[in-house]
């Protein structure tokens, strides 16, 4: 009897201990340290990476307006993210919007944990919030390139607040929100967990680090913006040459380095998969730089620095959704392809359609994002050196069907185009009717630095 009681107590104790361990995994310090560093790298992508990349491409009279837009958009989105953005994107709600349970980061403590892509492996939720914050900050900042040099500062900020709330957050929720791997214990549990995930997650659309959420989303918002706002005064007649390709090269290089935080950080753990993502990001970017440069050299006679920098960014954009499933050779092929296609889109497509996307947000991020998202279905295939898609119920890689995956990717692309297009159109209209989007002709002639910000970039 005593023996039985002891065994029972032991079983209960062990069971309890086992349960407690399953309920509260402890973050690994290595993972946590890596995610803090990755977050820092993504911050650097916007400030100063993107700001300089864009700033170098405008005329000197508008340099500070670009720097200032990037700087303040980043800061504004960071605060909005903490107030409600994180909760709307990353808590359970419906398939399109999360809830407000974690508005004002309610209930989050240093002990709170966030899931990764491995069962039983977690990171501190504060790190996950900060990491995802940096994505929410850079995406709106990407859009400003499309209507650079002609929009009121107040209008930019107002538009971004609306667009962030109704386009960035729901698309992030649709693509990325899921219950985490630990919920996928068996087929039934997986079905129940799957039903709580975002709309595109349920469709099976793959987007490792934000090809759809960040790049297509921003690219479409940029395209709608430059179509609605109209061309810059003197577009096609006066010289609008970049005032400093040097700054653009520095910015592109900072973006490239920062992007390792963006992509490899999206793995959420410091492990072999992160290393693969790192290498894929490196190779696709190098390949796209080469292919853009080669295309430009052949088509236009000279390989330009602006072209090489643009090619690098196009490669980074395209590998972003694919980097978690592609192999190194697939990444090189994807990079080679996107460099040529984006070169075509900014030199030919743009002139054919006649819109003034000042810094080619659509031509590079929109087009590159679409190629990356669709290309993910191809390069993820194990037959082409990819990893295939992990099945958390079977605890192994599932059989891969390129056709099925391609359709899932097309769902992601189509949804992002329509959703961002509609939200952007309405948001621009609202801003135009209230603040007014465009500055006066006189202000545009004089440049936004002096008129909107009371400063001059260079005193030489």
């Amino acid at each position, binding site marked *: 009897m005593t023996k039985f009681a002891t065994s029972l107590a032991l079983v209960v104790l062990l069971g309890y201990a086992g349960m407690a361990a399953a309920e509260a995994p402890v973050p690994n310090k290595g993972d946590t340290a890596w995610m803090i560093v990755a977050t820092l790298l993504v911050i650097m992508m916007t400030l100063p990476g993107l700001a300089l990349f864009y700033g170098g491409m405008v005329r000197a009279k508008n340099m500070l307006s670009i720097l200032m837009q990037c700087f303040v958009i980043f800061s504004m989105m960071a605060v909005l993210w903490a107030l409600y953005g994180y909760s709307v994107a990353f808590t359970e709600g419906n398939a399109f919007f999360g809830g407000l349970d974690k508005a004002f980061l309610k209930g989050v403590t240093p002990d709170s944990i966030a899931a990764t892509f491995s069962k039983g492996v977690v990171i501190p939720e504060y790190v996950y919030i900060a990491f995802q914050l940096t994505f929410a900050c850079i995406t709106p900042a990407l859009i400003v390139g499309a209507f650079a040099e002609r929009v009121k500062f107040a209008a930019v900020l107002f538009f971004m607040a609306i667009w962030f709330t109704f386009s960035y957050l729901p698309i992030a929720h649709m693509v990325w929100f899921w219950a985490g791997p630990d919920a996928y214990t068996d087929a039934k549990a997986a079905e129940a967990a799957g039903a709580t995930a975002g709309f595109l997650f349920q469709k099976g659309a793959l987007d490792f680090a934000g090809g759809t959420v960040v790049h297509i989303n921003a690219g479409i918002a940029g395209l709608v913006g430059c179509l609605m706002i109209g061309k810059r005064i003197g577009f096609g007649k006066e010289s609008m040459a970049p005032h400093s390709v040097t700054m653009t090269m520095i910015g592109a290089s900072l973006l490239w380095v920062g992007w390792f935080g963006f992509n490899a950080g999206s793995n959420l753990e410091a492990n072999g998969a992160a290393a693969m993502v790192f290498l894929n990001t490196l190779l696709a970017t190098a390949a796209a730089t080469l292919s853009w440069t080669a295309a430009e050299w052949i088509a236009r006679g000279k390989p330009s620095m*602006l072209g090489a920098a643009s090619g690098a960014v196009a490669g980074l954009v395209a590998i972003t959704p694919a980097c978690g499933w592609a192999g190194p050779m697939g990444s090189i092929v994807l990079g080679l392809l996107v460099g040529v296609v984006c070169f075509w889109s900014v030199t030919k497509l743009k002139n054919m359609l006649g819109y003034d996307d000042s810094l080619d947000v659509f031509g590079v991020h929109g087009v590159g994002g679409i190629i990356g998202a669709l290309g993910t279905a191809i390069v993820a295939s194990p037959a082409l050196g990819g990893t295939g898609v992990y099945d958390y119920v079977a605890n192994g890689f599932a059989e891969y069907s390129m056709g099925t995956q391609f359709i899932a990717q097309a769902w992601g692309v189509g949804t992002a185009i329509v959703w961002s297009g509609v939200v952007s159109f309405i948001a621009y209209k609202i801003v135009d009717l209230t603040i007014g989007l465009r500055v006066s002709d006189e202000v545009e002639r004089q440049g936004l630095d002096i008129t909107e910000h009371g400063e001059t970039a260079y005193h030489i």
Partner: protein
Amino acid sequence: MKFVTAILKPFKLDDVREALSDVGISGITVTEVKGFGRQKGHTELYRGAEYVVDFLPKVKLEVAVTDEQLDMVLEAISKTANTGKIGDGKIFVTNLEQVIRIRTGETGADAL
């Protein structure tokens, strides 16, 4: 006295300055300028945009000389600034009525 204005390729400036020193010229004025002549401009390509740059950078050199120095100066400039290629520049010669050295009040050739 004569006033000589020469438009030169910027990289030739040092050679010309040296040649002028050698023939006894003790002061010149140089300005960075832009312009076009037969050389015309060039085309710059930035992604989809093509811009024709009409004005090329040149230096404008100004020197005041006595009538006796003129031929030597003209020869020194045209010899050293010549590359044989289009865009070497031009030399303009005008009459100079008066020169005054501000510090001492000297006038004419003494002020050169």
